[in-house]
């Protein structure tokens, strides 16, 4: 069959299919304009293919056609699918024709149904010219993902990380999309969404944090990255919210997808000891040691007077997080407009059972031993980092936690301490008062998912501990 003949066939099929659809589904225009990535926004009910098939006995014609301009051949099994009428759904993706396999139709699409009528059809696996995107099976694709992550992302090839982050997340397994070359099957890239619970003004929301996005070096142009992230977002939008801490290279991808960064995560740092800085400028060991001793003494004196922990009872918490952390989570969350649901189960998984990093908890209690807040930090090559700071809305208590961490880490030889907060976080004033200096920032994307409401950043608590890449 020549390209021209096939084009004629396609147009004929298209006309017939549309005519059939028009009779049964008055909402056809909405159906036809749906794209992967918009799933769930207008449909009042989203089901998977199996459920939807049972619940909607009406059949919709299917249109399958090949990208004729590329001159590819119409393969027999694809034609057979169409001729046998097994494929029952219309699918257009932007203006580009797609070829779907039978396997795609078995589990990778969802329907929007309202009042028994199909109003939206979202393919969640698409085959594009030269590239196919599919949902990964974490067991079957484990080795493929580990190998590719190792090539593109630091620490990505560690099987312990994969098991911890992708498979043992207490909220749900990671959802991963894989893009591969349509012809030879080689991996082009992958993107992941890690389920996460958020609390919005105290109310629990099912969300996900995006991460581990990569495109293999030989495919690093905008097109494949956009298609891959579009597919990933089609799943992420099914959550009530999703957020991401994209690298600079990802910003054009988001821009193309019509998503602008919502906020900046800014790092604040405080020098604790002066050895490294002085040794960089003064090479004579004796002199640099003497100067560092004087500078360290000055730093210590300064903080001794300015950083007070008041009457709060600070201690290191070395055991598991227990019920009192759940109680604190519920009592403190309403004070923040958006934060991760820091349940004991989550904290144990995120920090206590981390596959590689050793985190330490500094906790604060009041006079009656009630847990008021905690700070989680880690030390690495002289630079300590506070990656979580949470508690009741009591600035003096939070200040006491930070001061306690500063004193403790200085005594242990840490050179600097840093903490990252959203640029709108009201606790920034507190940090600057405690001698932290503003450093670099990275963009944060937060999308309200199904609710297309305003995104207000006031009193958000997203910190380094909330990111997974």
């Amino acid at each position, binding site marked *: 069959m020549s390209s021209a003949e096939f084009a004629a066939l396609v147009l004929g099929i298209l006309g017939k299919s549309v005519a059939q659809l028009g009779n049964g589904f008055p909402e056809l225009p909405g159906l036809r304009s749906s794209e992967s990535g918009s799933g769930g926004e207008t449909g009042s009910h989203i089901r998977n293919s199996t459920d939807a098939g049972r619940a909607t006995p009406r059949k919709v014609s299917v249109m399958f056609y090949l990208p004729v301009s590329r001159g590819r051949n119409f393969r027999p099994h694809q034609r057979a699918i169409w001729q046998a009428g097994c494929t029952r759904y219309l699918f257009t993706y932007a203006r580009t024709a797609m070829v779907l396999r039978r396997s795609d139709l078995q589990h990778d699409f969802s329907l929007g149904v309202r009042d028994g009528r199909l109003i939206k059809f979202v393919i969640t696996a698409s085959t594009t010219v030269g590239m196919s995107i599919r949902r990964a099976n974490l067991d079957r694709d484990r080795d493929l993902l580990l190998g590719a992550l190792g090539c593109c992302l630091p620490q990505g090839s560690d099987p312990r990380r994969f098991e911890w982050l992708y498979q043992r997340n207490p909220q749900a397994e990671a959802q991963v999309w894989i893009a591969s070359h349509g012809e030879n099957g080689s991996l082009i890239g992958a993107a992941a969404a890690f389920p996460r619970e958020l609390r919005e003004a105290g109310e629990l929301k099912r969300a996900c944090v995006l991460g581990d996005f990569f495109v293999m070096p030989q495919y690093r142009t905008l097109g494949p990255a956009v298609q891959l992230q579009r597919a990933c977002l089609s799943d992420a939008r099914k959550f009530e919210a999703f957020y991401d801490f994209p690298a600079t290279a990802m910003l*054009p991808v988001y821009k193309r997808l019509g998503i602008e960064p919502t906020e900046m995560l800014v790092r604040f740092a405080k020098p604790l000891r002066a050895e490294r800085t002085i040794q960089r400028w003064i090479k004579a060991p004796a002199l640099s040691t003497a100067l560092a001793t004087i500078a360290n003494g000055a730093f210590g004196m300064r903080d001794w007077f300015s950083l007070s922990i008041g009457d709060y009872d600070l201690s290191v918490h070395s055991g598991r997080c227990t019920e009192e952390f759940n109680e604190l989570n519920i009592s403190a969350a309403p004070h923040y407009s958006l934060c991760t649901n820091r349940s004991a189960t989550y904290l144990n998984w995120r920090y206590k059972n981390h596959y590689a990093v050793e985190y330490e908890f500094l906790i604060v209690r009041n006079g009656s031993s009630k847990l008021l807040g905690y700070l989680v930090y880690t030390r690495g090559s002289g630079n300590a980092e506070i990656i979580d700071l949470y508690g009741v809305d009591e600035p003096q208590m939070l200040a006491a936690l930070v001061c306690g961490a500063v004193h403790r880490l200085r005594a242990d030889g840490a050179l600097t301490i840093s903490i990252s907060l959203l640029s709108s976080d009201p606790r920034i004033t507190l940090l600057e008062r405690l001698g932290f200096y503003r450093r670099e920032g990275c963009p944060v994307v937060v999308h309200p998912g199904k609710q297309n409401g305003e995104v207000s950043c006031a009193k958000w608590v997203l910190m380094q501990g909330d990111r997974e890449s």
Partner: protein
Amino acid sequence: MNSINDHSTNEAIQAFLIDKFPLARKRGVTFDDNLLESGILDSLGILDLVHFLEQSFGIILSDEELVAENFQTIARLSAFLQSKLPSEAKHVG
């Protein structure tokens, strides 16, 4: 929508690159220079260029078309644009 031919398309793209991208200006980008390997165009640059092409030539570029093959050189981009434009928009000669 502009009426275009290969040469005027080449020149329009070249002028845009020289105007917007310092590296293109510094190197005096030619029609056959590799825009990606030379670092003249990165992902963000491609987005700017796509916006320019869509505005100037009244076309819409899909995600699938944002691939290295189409953006490698000015000449190749121009040929790609020609293939996308409806025949009446092309001006021969």
